[in-house]
């Protein structure tokens, strides 16, 4: 093959590939224009059919026709997509061949050129380069300088005063503000609402009197708080899992049989305005729960004896509270943490980071925002109070800390940073040598903190994962467990791990330790009883239902609610003895609260009072 032949071949290939590219490109354009002109989604025929269906919604023939038309449109679309993609690859292939052919053509045609007789004048070009550099440099700087004049600094215009002036406030540590709005009255319950809620129920439900607000008046607390006593909290049920959060109840005559469907032993049930996965707490004649949705966050107080909604406290107008609530998962919600009370005030926290205190009559005492917790499911650690402090476990993706707030003012008494990851467990109080400490569990530590100072007293690195269950405490031993991790028994004084096991591990239910027994409830529905000292398994019972509620000890028995609303009652002993299975009639994953002769259960829609 001579050089001329090669030249000709390269030229022909270049021409053919050029024509090929042009044809493919034109076809692609045609495809695009055709598609843009007859967009299946904008099809008028389809619109007419849909319009006709609106007028005649039961026309099955029309529905079939629309579906077929829609299927055709989609086929046309995906066909067009395939054509575009294939065309693009063909175009690329053609372009590569064209480029190669052109290269070969020019390479064959190329001859080493005769060197230029007169080379570029280096000096002149350098002088020109200097001018060019100075001009370009100056232009860049001038443009950047001019941009500074054309720019408005809006950040400087941000009005911090106005933004924070929603409520008159007093700044406390790092922008968190405490508001004193003690005069705000709780909202009365509309009579119609109460009437609607009770209509149609056969069981004994209490209806609020129209236009009247039943208030069990209690004095507004004074500024100087009176500390709680152990006796007081044992006579009530002031926090998640009862006194000290340990799951042990001191009340007697607890009912063991009821039925939601027939109303047997259901003393009353009252509708709950907003949903939440928090559990009821009790003080005196009042039951407290909380609820929230994207519009508002509320605390409810019911009359414990008749179920009347006494007041609704709204957690609104709180400085630093986000304009719209953070995204949370459906199974956690915006109001997962259980409220707590010291008998003078009731405290609530929400997934927004809003903490609020009401007095027992529903007047707001203080409110503050702790900063929106960075929590991918939603904040769920419940509150607990002791020694005039409200204890907040605030383990988030950003930081982990334990915060103690003054119950009367909301001011931070102390704040301890924890070397831990995010958790969903709740604080538990433990009395050791006459002193109280708050015990927390999270990945990777189980740790105790002095309630008075917040100082970390001890810590054991043994936990992992997304910790949901709180600890159990009995006879100087802390029991911590988490699904896919481990269960450990830690001597609180020596921090020695007495035993550990990983056979049955809870996901959400906190373990219960009492009288030498340890009870664990797994989310896949197995109840297990261990010897608390040795970890030896005594019995297990596969209930086959999801268990998120925490087991409770009361009146010599073990109470365990499943997510379907069935409460199983066992004898609290080394042998498995199921006493009763009672159906509530609605889903309930919360933990019940107890009073003498009564059980209070929060279902999805209603709050129930059970008694003989």
């Amino acid at each position, binding site marked *: 093959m001579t050089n001329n032949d090669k030249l000709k071949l390269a030229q022909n290939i270049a021409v053919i590939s050029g024509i090929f590219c042009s044809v493919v490109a034109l076809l692609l354009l045609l495809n695009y224009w055709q598609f843009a002109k007859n967009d299946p989604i904008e099809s008028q025929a389809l619109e007419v059919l849909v319009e006709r269906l609106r007028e005649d919604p039961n026309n099955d023939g029309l529905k079939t026709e629309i579906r077929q038309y829609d299927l055709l449109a989609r086929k046309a679309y995906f066909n067009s997509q395939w054509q575009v993609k294939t065309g693009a690859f063909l175009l690329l292939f053609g372009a590569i061949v064209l480029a190669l052919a052109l290269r070969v053509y020019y390479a064959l045609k190329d001859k080493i050129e005769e060197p230029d007789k007169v080379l570029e004048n280096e000096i002149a070009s350098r002088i020109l380069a200097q001018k060019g550099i100075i001009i370009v440099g100056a232009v860049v700087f001038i443009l950047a*300088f001019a941009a500074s004049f054309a720019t408005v600094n809006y950040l400087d215009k941000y009005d911090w005063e106005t933004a924070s002036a929603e409520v008159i406030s007093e700044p406390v540590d790092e922008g968190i503000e405490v508001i004193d709005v003690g005069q705000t009255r709780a909202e009365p319950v509309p009579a119609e609402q109460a009437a609607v809620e009770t209509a149609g129920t056969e069981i004994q439900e209490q209806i609020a009197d129209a236009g009247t607000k039943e208030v069990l008046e209690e004095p507004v607390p004074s500024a100087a708080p009176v500390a709680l006593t152990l006796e007081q909290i044992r006579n009530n049920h002031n926090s998640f899992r009862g006194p000290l959060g340990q799951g042990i109840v001191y009340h007697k005559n607890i009912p063991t049989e009821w039925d939601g469907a027939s109303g047997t032993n259901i003393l009353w049930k009252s509708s709950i305005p907003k949903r939440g996965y928090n559990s009821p707490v009790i003080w005196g004649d009042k039951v407290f729960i909380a609820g929230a949705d994207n519009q508002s966050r509320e605390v409810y107080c019911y009359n414990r004896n008749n179920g009347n909604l006494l007041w609704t406290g709204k957690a609104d107008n709180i400085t630093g509270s986000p304009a719209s609530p953070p995204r949370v998962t459906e199974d956690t919600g915006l109001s997962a943490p259980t409220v707590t009370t010291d008998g003078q005030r009731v405290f609530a926290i929400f997934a927004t980071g809003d903490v609020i205190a009401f007095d027992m009559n529903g007047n707001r005492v203080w409110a503050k925002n702790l900063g929106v917790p960075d929590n991918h499911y939603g904040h769920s650690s419940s509150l607990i109070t002791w020694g005039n402090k409200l204890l907040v476990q605030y383990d988030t993706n950003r930081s982990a800390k334990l915060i103690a707030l003054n119950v009367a003012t909301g001011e931070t008494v102390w704040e301890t940073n924890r070397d831990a990851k995010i958790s969903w467990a709740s604080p538990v109080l433990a009395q050791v040598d006459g002193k109280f400490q708050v015990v927390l569990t999270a990945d990777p530590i189980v740790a105790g903190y002095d309630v008075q100072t917040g100082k970390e007293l001890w810590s054991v690195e043994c936990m992992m994962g997304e910790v949901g269950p709180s600890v159990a405490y009995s006879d100087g031993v802390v029991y911590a467990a988490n699904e896919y991790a481990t269960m450990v028994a830690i001597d609180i004084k020596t921090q020695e791990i007495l035993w550990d096991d990983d056979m049955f591990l809870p996901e959400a239910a906190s373990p219960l330790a009492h009288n030498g027994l340890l009870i664990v409830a797994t989310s896949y529905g197995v109840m297990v009883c261990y010897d608390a000292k040795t970890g030896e398994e005594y019995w297990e019972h596969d209930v086959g239902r999801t268990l998120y509620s925490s087991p409770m000890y009361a009146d010599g028995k073990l109470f365990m609610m499943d997510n379907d609303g069935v409460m199983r009652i066992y004898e609290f002993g080394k042998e498995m003895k199921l006493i009763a299975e009672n159906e509530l009639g609605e889903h309930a994953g919360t933990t019940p609260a107890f009073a003498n002769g009564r059980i209070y259960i929060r279902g999805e829609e209603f709050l129930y009072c059970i008694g003989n």
Partner: protein
Amino acid sequence: MKKLKYILFTFYFLLFTFTLIAQQQRFPKPEFESGYEQPDTVTPEPRALALEYFDVLVLILVLSLATWFALKTRSRQGVLWLSVFTLIYFGFYRNGCICSIGAIQNVTLSFADPTYAISLTALLFFILPLAFTLFFGRTFCAGACPLGAIQDLVIIKPISLPKWLNKTLGLIPYLYISLAVLFAATGTDFIICRYDPFVGIFRMDAKFLMVVLGVSFLLMGMFVARPYCRFFCPYSVLLSWMSRFSKWHLTITPAACIQCKLCTNSCPFDAIDFPTNEKEVVKSGLGTKRFLAYAVLIPIWVAAGVFVGERSHTFLSKANPDVFLAELLISNPEIKNDPDNLDVQTFLASGKTMETLVQEAEVIRGKFYVGSMIAGGFMGLVIGMTLLNTVVFRKRQDYVPHKGNCLSCARCMDYCPVEK
């Protein structure tokens, strides 16, 4: 004839770009009434670590081969086919990622943000080409860079640019690297990747403007050889610095230069330095006086750069998404009610307060305040040094490649009649 050529090129340019718009068709998801839920969007798994290390191995092999072809066998054909492999492997197969040019930003961010952990692969992709260049010149540009390869393959009829234009346009990579480092260090954006003109072609899914940019570079590259490499590539700044110190840089002639001048038009990148005409230099007056004047001007250029950087930091910081969002919400509070503004709606749904957003934006602006002054000062220094460089004459008797600008493509060697 020439006119016809340009008309044809323009026609192709428009045809190709408009054709590729067709790829941006989107079809809305169907709405089901039967309760069927659309599956969640799945994020693709990252490339397996072993394969990442394999990429590093391939890079080392390609760099070694490019060096061997350029320095040892002096084979243009070898370099050419190696760049074809690079284009296929690092370009079309690896979709242009990871690349050494973009790795500048990963390295910068790892220094600026202690919470950002740079992968070993990114670090090696950044360091290896620099290390090779330090010893052997820019062999990375010759055969191991997919961006360079795609441009190199479309060089058809390169024209020589005047020296002053080469020098002036040569400032752009410095400006680009200053901004890229500033934006990466402040966590604002990886602009090198965002505005990579060829990655859209490698992935066949570019946005319209990027296709226009990529095709423009390729069309321009038919006449102005490798325009992105010479006048935009930020990595070329670092490579150029390294290459100036390279011990074993390629030479045009394997033995003594016979001054035949055949190679004068061989370099499409204008990277061959000619022998110094000493008489002309002496006559020009570009001597000590101007050298001293430019040397004195350097601190003034630097000071001007720092000042301009300080003044323009507010403008530059607006590129940061957090700053932009905070300012948008301050200047236009009603936008909160716009359900179509996804950024605003995402912010509102996150639960973050406005105060937090503004505080975060102010922290970022603070970083820009310092960063812009450093970037401005650096640009001032570059301008001052480049000016000074124009009055420095190095005594040369032969035709030699400019170590900083030479891309080690080995074209010039084919023109040299001298044999070993």
